[in-house]
């Protein structure tokens, strides 16, 4: 039984006003997103419709501090299948941005961020690949402006966010 105290009535309002979260207001709980989502079919915890319902109901704590938002692989199937223009995938991004601000970042994403801050890219070529490219007469991998990337990420405080990361509650 969820007491009102556990619910945060203003949660839907908060998500609706995050840059990619406006779609939550259109949701009519039809279930088309969860039944077309490839992940929902394989992982029981991940259910986009139920996630939207929890936002509407206001279970802020359960949504932002668990693994729930991190299963989505942003293939936008739910967004295209949503009959009400509920932009479910966009709302997923909105919740993840909110979760990151609360320090909830899984390891895989943190690794990508670390790589980005260190090398300016998410995927960096292994030494063996650089030699192979040489042999094939291809140019070295494209040049990256690493300092400029680091300056940008300092301005958007991404590096601070990554530093204040806590492990996620199962």
């Amino acid at each position: 039984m969820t007491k009102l105290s556990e619910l945060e009535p203003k949660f839907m309002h908060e998500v609706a006003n995050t840059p990619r979260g406006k779609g939550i207001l259109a949701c009519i709980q039809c279930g088309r997103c969860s039944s077309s989502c490839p992940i929902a079919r394989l992982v029981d915890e991940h259910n986009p419709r139920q996630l939207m319902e929890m936002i509407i109901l206001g279970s802020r704590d359960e949504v932002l501090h668990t693994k729930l938002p991190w299963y989505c692989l942003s293939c936008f199937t739910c967004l295209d299948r949503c009959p009400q223009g509920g932009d479910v995938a966009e709302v997923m991004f909105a919740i993840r941005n909110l979760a990151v601000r609360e320090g909830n970042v899984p390891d895989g994403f943190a690794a990508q961020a670390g790589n980005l801050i260190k090398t300016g890219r998410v995927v960096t070529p292994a030494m063996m690949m650089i030699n192979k490219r040489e042999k094939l007469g291809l140019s070295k991998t494209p040049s990256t402006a690493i300092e400029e990337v680091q300056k940008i990420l300092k301005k958007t405080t991404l590096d601070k966010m990554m530093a204040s990361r806590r492990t996620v509650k199962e």
Partner: protein
Amino acid sequence: MKGEPRVGVFVCHCGVNIGGVVKVPKVVKYTKTLPNVAYAEDNLYTCSEAGIDSIKDAIKKYDLNRVIVASCTPRTHEPLFRAACKEAGLNPYLFEMANIREQCSWVHPKEPEKATEKAKDIVRMAVARATWLEPQTEPEVKIRDSALVIGAGIAGMTAATTLANQGFKVHLIEKEKEIGGYVRRLYKLYPTMEESSEIIEPIIEAVKKHKNIELMTSTTIEEVSGYVGNFNVTATKKDKKIQLEVGTIIVACGGLNYQPPKGLYQYGIYDHVITQLELDQILKEGRLGKPERVVMIQCVGAKKGEIRGYELESFPKSDTAKLLKKILRAKKEEGWPYCSRICCMNAIKNAILIKTASPETDVIILYGDLRVYKEYEDFYSKARDLEVKFIKILEIVTPEVTETPDKKLKVLAYDMLAGKEAEFVADWVALSTPLVPHKDEVILARMLKIPISPDGFLMEAHLKLRPVDTMMDGIYLAGVASGPKDVPETITSAKAAAARAAILMANKKMKSEAIIAVVNEDLCKGCGRCEEVCEYKGIKLEEAEGALIAKVIEAQCKGCGVCAVTCPTGAISMQHFTNKQINVMIKAAIGG
């Protein structure tokens, strides 16, 4: 009827409906062996133009003086085939229908052989009866071109102005002192959010000013007698009797908003538990202020006795035990068996009004099925854009309302889609209640002799194709009298009722059924038993050469046959259903 009876029999396949079960060709072959049968054939659809033409041609070619169509129900097709006989020059009452669909193929789909035999019996009985049919002439009734409209709500006023604009005299009678009815009291109307006054004031002006409309307020109807085209209505206005003679009557008595019984969701116990109508009035007077949360509960008063099978069927076992206690309680609740179609929209309208007035208020609507139909889906989206929360609850687990120590209301509901029981503390709880029939609808129905349908509203002649007519010619239904409707639907049905009434009044005359009682004056002892039992007052004792003789008022008699059965001396017989005809049918049935 001079000359030997020459019967033509047309057996119908009705596509698969009859032909799929009854061996129609066999029935035709058998029919040809019956006495007096001059011609018999079968066709795929006798009700199609092909069937009609084959009947007309056969009458001329084989000089038939009786016609039988063995097909479906007289209720929908007898007028059609009678018209065909008439066009071929044969008196329409020399026609007889044998129902081998509803009374045979449809009920015995699994036994084709027996069904075929039964079809033969039914046709044999019809042929037997046909030989004794006599031509009848339909009495013609004069129709006055004035109408009575009962109830001056939005339905009554619209019907009255529509008829008046077409030049007919209209008597508009309203029980209350003020006209405008249910809609006039409302604040705003969905979906356009126009004020109710913007819609209803122009019509009220038109009614008051229209030269063809005679408006009588605080007038109640005492008694209605007479028949189509000549209704005499007696009404009283502040103990002044008024007599009216009108051609047609339009019933626009409207409906009531259901007052939940004391205690249902603590209604009547806590004053902040209100109905949507009361919330509408509070919003109209701006008395709501800026509450922190308003919770609305849908389908209050709707019958939840039938447990929605699907919800219990695959329900997680763990919760069922806990919920069963609540389910049994829900079963006891009485309620209206129909969906009153306007309460969802009303709740959303009030939610939008609250949210526009004070966006900070948290508005939650607990619903089982959100029936926002037609183009009102945009209205529903507008509410969601204003952050109104729609939470689907398990209907069979009715929410519980209790009071918190600090005089707020606590609503406990099972949110089916999140799979959790959630609890909300609210300042107001609004109950969406259905539209229910007017208490005096029953009195009106008995007065006008029109039936009431199972859900308590007045019954229309045919649900699909005659939605504003009634069983009684000349009496029509407009607005909520025949079932819950929203304002646009009410206005449409009012205009439709006006159109139907206008037909009779424009033609000024009408033919009515010839199936009526006939009194054999030699046998009538004047005992008056027939007058007592006649529901429609279609038969009266009259002085004739010093003796009391029963006399039939042709247009008023509905041909129900009660008088004929009650008459001790057998003086009364029914045209087209004489005892002879019926006995012959019975003999044919048993004779085999």
